[in-house]
């Protein structure tokens, strides 16, 4: 499947998002997911979402619709229900892989 971009977001993008991103990269390597994992601080999330496929959000877990699937990253920190979250992430990646119409490009 083509490479997907996972955004990991927390308040400052320092401690919790970096740690979560490291864990997702490790799981992705084990499961051979073709993903790039980027860390973004919460105030820049909206802007970053336009170039991404999935958001893993730690805190705040807001109700905003960023136009792409979003799930909670807390299980990567607490270990609680981590298997379920990894399965959800994998399911979303598979869904994203289904062909969809390319958006029209400027000048074409």
């Amino acid at each position, binding site marked *: 499947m083509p490479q997907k971009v996972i955004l990991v977001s927390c308040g400052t993008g320092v401690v919790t998002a970096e740690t979560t991103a*490291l864990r997702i990269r490790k799981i992705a390597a084990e499961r051979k997911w073709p993903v790039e994992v980027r860390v973004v601080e919460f105030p820049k999330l909206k802007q970053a979402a336009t170039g991404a496929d999935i958001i893993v959000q730690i805190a705040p877990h807001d109700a905003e619709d960023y136009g792409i699937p979003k799930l909670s990253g807390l299980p990567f920190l607490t270990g609680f229900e981590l298997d379920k979250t990894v399965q959800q992430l994998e399911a979303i990646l598979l869904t994203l892989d289904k062909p969809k119409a390319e958006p029209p490009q400027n000048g074409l």
Partner: protein
Amino acid sequence: MLRPELVFVGLKAASREEALQLLAERMLKEDLVTPEFSARLLEREEAFPTGLQFAEAALALPHTETRYVLQPALAVAVLAEPVSFLAMGAPEQSLAVRIIFLPAVVHPDEQVRWLSRLISLFQTPGFLSGLLQPPNRESLFQYLRAALNAAPL
């Protein structure tokens, strides 16, 4: 990262603000953070709470932006009495916290490995309940050092 002067056993604080101020003042005294660190840390905690509930205990993982940090460090406190921290990702939930880990991070990509070790420890059975046992600074420091060295990524 870990140093005995940043490890506290039986720290007395009436609120999370007081606990964070005490730890931040100590870090300032050691020239690890800028004078703004304390205020930014408190602000950040109110905006993005860091309480985490684990099976054995609740803890808080307060932190703030890298620009207020001069040298990487980790302050650890076991409080005499719990104080209230709000839950990360669920600020409507209040947790009774006796354990505080305050990482001061300068370069997240360089320090992510020991941060990740720390998170692994939180999930390791026995670690958090064991953390409440050491009676003094030196024994808690030794406990933490041994645990961090042995922790997986």
